[in-house]
């Protein structure tokens, strides 16, 4: 890797990282509502110990996922990532992945992307669907991640094919998604 190439990229990424993110009221409100719901779903569940057995991890993940699915049984696409947020995220993803400059980001998106790596179990891109443990997660291009709205603990953005999913990593549940976000 030529170091001059890295230096240029460093400057670009730090500039991007230093740009103040606008406060998306819609995003903040809806994410906070989801976190409240998840806290409610977790009530009565013993917290996962930091030195758990695989059985305890599975039991906890399953229990949390079932409760979340029940509480959010009427959830629809766009409930958490609302229209304003979707438009905002689409713009960012497009600008980070288009053209020659977007090549590293596009390559990163393909790494671990379950549509590219063809896992044993396909990932259903649906609200409230379980993200199969057998499927890898896409690597998030760091420069893109630094521009996306910050998420609370245990929520992550990932790509499945060209779709961006909002994943609850504690329950392995797809909370919401934006279809065809990668051009």
């Amino acid at each position, binding site marked *: *890797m030529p*170091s001059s*190439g*890295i230096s240029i*990229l*460093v400057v*670009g*990424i730090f500039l991007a*990282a230093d740009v103040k993110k606008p406060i998306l009221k819609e995003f903040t409100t809806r994410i906070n509502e989801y976190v409240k719901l998840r806290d409610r779903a977790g009530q009565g569940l013993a917290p*996962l*110990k*930091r*030195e*758990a*057995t*695989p*059985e*305890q*991890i*599975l039991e*906890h*993940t399953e229990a949390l996922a079932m409760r979340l699915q029940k509480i959010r049984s009427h959830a629809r696409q766009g409930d958490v990532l609302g229209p304003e947020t979707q438009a905002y995220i689409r713009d960012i993803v497009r600008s980070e992945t288009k053209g020659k400059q977007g090549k*590293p*980001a596009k*390559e*990163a998106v393909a*790494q*671990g992307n379950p549509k590219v790596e063809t*896992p*044993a179990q396909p990932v259903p891109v649906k609200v409230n669907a379980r993200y199969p*443990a*057998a499927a*890898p*997660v*896409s*690597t*998030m*291009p*760091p*420069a893109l*991640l*630094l521009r996306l709205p*910050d998420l609370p603990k*245990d929520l*992550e953005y990932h790509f499945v094919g060209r779709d961006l999913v909002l994943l609850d*990593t*504690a329950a*392995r549940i797809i909370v919401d998604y934006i279809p065809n976000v990668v051009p």
Partner: protein
Amino acid sequence: MLRRSLLASIIGTLLNLWAAEVTPIDKDSLRFAVIGDTGTGDRASTEIANQLAKVRTTFPFEFAVMLGDNIYGNEKPRDFERKFERPFKLLIDAGVKFYAALGNHDDRNQRFYKLFNMNGQRYYTFQPRAGVRFFALDSNYMDRDQLDWLERELKASGSEWKICFFHHPIYSSGERHGPSVQLAALIEPLFVKYSVDVVLSGHEHIYERIKPQKGIYYFIVGSSAKLRAGGILKTGITAKGFDTDRAFMVMELSKDQIYFHTLARSGQVVDSGLLMRRK
């Protein structure tokens, strides 16, 4: 005559390498093993684990770092048993501690698994001995929180030896994935600024020792179970590559020096050397 003597010399060297017994240079040194992309549970991973146990009889290492893709495929309790606990039983029973980093095939909840010693964190640090600190990163998801944490921890470390390990290599001649350029742009300046000495990664199913970059030693050890035969491209950054069989490393830190040995699953030493700590 000359040709025959040259051939004999080469064969002799090769046999010596093959039979070389890996032993510590310094009895008080810190010794550890490095494995990456181990989570298949197949024959190759078991053979690597057995070879590690064998090496440990002459090179007693205290712990092993895992460079991600610790469990491939399903992650039910029987998978932890089949893909980690059974292959590495000899080492686990001997009290060897494993410190894992997360790969793109790993469920984030592995961070709670007691035998991976992640203490419930995606990224964490540990100090096995005064003056030596390891930093385990989650290269799948390098968000602002993690970057801030890394800078804070590197700055406050005060350790003479700083060793970072994570899944995606930032320098690589691997034909499958290549270097993680965006990740490099963010974390390499921190490595340079805070004098990180050694960086260990997996992901690419090869072994590669990179020529020092800005004074930092980079290794890829992603072939401890899976292998991409012939997967090293000619790039000019390779100091040593090995892509014809599975491999692992053992390392020894002694004062200002680090000794390393890379072994194939046959036990053959495929790379070894001495590196000096950055001043």
